[in-house]
């Protein structure tokens, strides 16, 4: 514990040197970090300079209505050395899945961290917040809403990890039985970084944490509060299968010739064109592959309401309702009304000509 406290005052550079990590190792670490943060390699010296001086921030991680998939993703970040260095350089003071303490001790750790680092700590949230009945999700008898509001008050910034925290996610899916909302739905006075994905790519989570650690600032965000470095381009625009789309070569089913030849999955419902994420370049499992490379269309998990987007296997250009039926009924109704209107017109004409009386000279002379 005393060791921990003393480490908090040290810069990252000092911490690493005291661990016997050479400058050359540090530069390698910076190169990997730049790559991870999707920054150009020309930024490596800047990163080295900033990391050298970075201080160990306190991090409080709150988990609400979630499946722990985001934490699972994070702890499976494959660049083990780099991650462990980063986690050595932050102080994860509260995370009820990862921390050793339980019960009152755990809550005490959170309160202590909040008090000690008031206004400076980083709050990470995964999971959505139920507004319907607070009983749907509580921690140590505290409702998710109360805990979030209480903890957010002294936070320097909030990172919403996962689609649930960022946009409401699966708990928010229709009919949203718990009244789930995202962090940004209820907190308006703090900088919030959304890191959506179901789960987010591990290095994207660590990349955003590292950005905050390195530069102490919020990265540039898009209109949905997502860091542009990772969510700046659509999956479709960065997809290696894009040339097939442009040539009009598509897999029609999951086991046809096109699927075997690795053609575009648009017709199988790929949401790549409307989804923004780093999957196509950063990839998953340590850069091994990503869903489209494995032959499955993108579900668009980093987008709001992806669960209610009209079906995972329906192409974006296809209507979500049964339009064939609509067309047939509308056509039948159209014919009926057309005939009726036409018939009324004819009847009018017929009765008009029937009622027509010829004018004679006698009439005019009257």
């Amino acid at each position, binding site marked *: 514990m005393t060791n921990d406290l003393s480490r908090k005052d040290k810069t990252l550079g000092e911490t690493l040197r005291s661990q016997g990590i050479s400058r050359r190792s540090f530069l390698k670490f910076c190169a990997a970090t730049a790559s991870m943060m999707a920054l150009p390699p020309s930024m490596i010296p800047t990163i080295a300079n900033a990391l050298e001086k970075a201080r160990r921030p306190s991090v409080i991680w709150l988990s609400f209505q979630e499946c722990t998939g985001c934490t699972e993703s994070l702890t499976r970040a494959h660049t083990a050395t780099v991650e462990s260095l980063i986690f050595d350089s932050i102080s994860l003071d509260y995370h009820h899945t990862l921390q050793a303490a339980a019960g009152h001790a755990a809550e005490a750790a959170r309160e202590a961290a909040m008090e000690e680092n008031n206004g400076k700590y980083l709050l990470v949230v995964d999971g959505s917040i139920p507004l319907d009945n607070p009983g749907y999700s509580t921690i140590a008898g505290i409702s998710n809403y109360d805990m979030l509001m209480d903890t957010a008050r002294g936070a320097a910034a909030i990172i919403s990890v996962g689609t649930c925290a960022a946009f409401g996610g699966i708990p928010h899916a229709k009919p949203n039985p718990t009244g789930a909302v995202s962090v940004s739905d209820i907190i308006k006075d703090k900088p919030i970084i959304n890191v959506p994905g179901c789960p987010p790519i591990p290095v994207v989570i660590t990349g955003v944490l590292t950005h905050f650690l390195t530069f102490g600032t919020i990265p540039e965000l*898009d209109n949905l509060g997502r860091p542009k470095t990772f969510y700046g381009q659509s999956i479709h625009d960065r997809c290696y299968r894009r040339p097939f789309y442009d040539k009009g070569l598509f897999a029609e089913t999951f086991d046809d010739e096109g699927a075997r030849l690795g053609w575009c999955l648009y017709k199988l419902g790929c949401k790549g064109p409307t989804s923004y994420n780093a999957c196509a370049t950063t990839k998953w499992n340590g850069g091994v592959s990503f869903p489209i490379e494995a032959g499955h269309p993108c579900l668009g998990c980093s987008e709001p*309401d992806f669960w209610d987007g009209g079906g995972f296997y329906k192409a*974006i250009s296809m209507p979500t309702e049964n339009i064939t039926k609509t067309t047939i009924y*509308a056509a039948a109704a159209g014919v009926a*009304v057309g005939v009726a209107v*036409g018939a009324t017109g004819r009847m009018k004409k017929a009765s008009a000509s029937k009622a027509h009386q010829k004018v004679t000279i006698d009439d005019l002379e009257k």
Partner: protein
Amino acid sequence: MTETELLTWVRGPGFQIATIIFVLGIMLRLFEILMLGRKANLAEAKGSEMSSGLRTVFSRTIPDASTFKRSAFTVTAGYIFHIGLFVVIFLFAPHILLFKDIIGFGWPALPSTVIDATAVITIITLVIVLVHRLRDPVKRFLSNFDDYLGWFVTILPLITGYIAFHRIGMSAPSLIAIHILSVELLMVVFPFTKLMHMFTLILARWYNGAISGYRGVQS
């Protein structure tokens, strides 16, 4: 409303409403015209109505030499944007998918780069056609609100589609939603404007051909 919600709405209820108005409107207007019928011709038939009518439906697609000479620009530009519209609407893979979903079968698509180029040519031609309409005193005199509305709802999906394809300015879900919305506007307006010529031209040509056939003259 989030952009995903908007996209889901335009693909779902929005498209359904547009389809109902589009199909119902077209059928209503066509059958209304058909119900009008024609006065019985008491003269003796000097030829077949059927063959002449059918032939005329197709033969009028090619302008006769004198018409072409008189208004070469109108005919050429008309051809370009009509063919362009056909290519862009019916030969782009995502669009074919929409038709396949409704009618049950699809057909081969053209590469998206070809569609892209065609869309640009079509947009430019439509703009030129409008300029021509505004500058030509006769055309301007003959034009009313209906003509300009028809032009607007036709070029709008082309422009929004082009922007959505290239993802300019906004995020993709919004752009695609706006594009579909512009098509829905076209569908809603279609049956009640001169855009109905897409269907009525067949009736008009048929009647012209049939009348001439009955009289035994060339149509």
